[in-house]
């Protein structure tokens, strides 16, 4: 069964550093998403991406965040200058029809 993959599984970074989280979507899916889950809290929508542009973003998705699909396969989330409160699990998801398929997540730890 096709699946969404994410790398790395765990990233530790220092405050102020840039991080790039990577996702490989399912090949025939056209809609891509990033979600965030701070430990012990609910899963929150960050951004959706379709046809090479952002289709919707949440209040969390400020200027520190950006997304792109640089090579037609990977879908990346960049955090320009990480803060302690960015520590969370980040999930990539892709969608076909009305079912989203979630990747295994990247645990980001900002120290």
């Amino acid at each position, binding site marked *: 069964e096709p699946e969404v993959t994410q790398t790395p599984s765990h990233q530790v970074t220092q405050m102020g550093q840039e991080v790039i989280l990577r996702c490989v979507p399912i090949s025939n899916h056209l*809609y891509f998403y990033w979600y965030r889950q701070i430990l012990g809290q*609910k*899963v929150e*929508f960050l951004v959706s991406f379709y046809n090479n542009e952002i289709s*919707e973003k949440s209040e969390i998705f400020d200027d520190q965040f950006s997304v792109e699909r640089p090579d037609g396969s990977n879908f990346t989330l960049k955090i320009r200058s990480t803060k302690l409160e960015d520590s969370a699990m980040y999930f990539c998801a892709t969608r076909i029809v*009305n079912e989203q398929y979630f990747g295994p997540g990247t645990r980001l730890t900002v120290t």
Partner: protein
Amino acid sequence: AQTVTQSQPEMSVQEAETVTLSCTYDTSENNYYLFWYKQPPSRQMILVIRQEAYKQQNATENRFSVNFQKAAKSFSLKISDSQLGDTAMYFCAFIDTGGFKTIFGAGTRLFVKA
């Protein structure tokens, strides 16, 4: 705004027993999809079951079934013959047919006791 509410932060059940997790939602849409996701300690999101709002028949997947009450905007999950491996966080989720994002509830932590 669309919201999903799970009013039970934690529940426990004895192995082999049945447990029901509650979920209510709010939307003005008529067509939408509802999901239950399981999140074990690995924190991966695993789809348990989905329900299309236009279908009256309740979805069933092996030991998992839902009670979908569209008028009441209620979507509960029943787990029959609970197993130790069912111990996890369970999230109720909603996506409308515009479908740009999934809205999650706060989750219910389920403990299955031996």
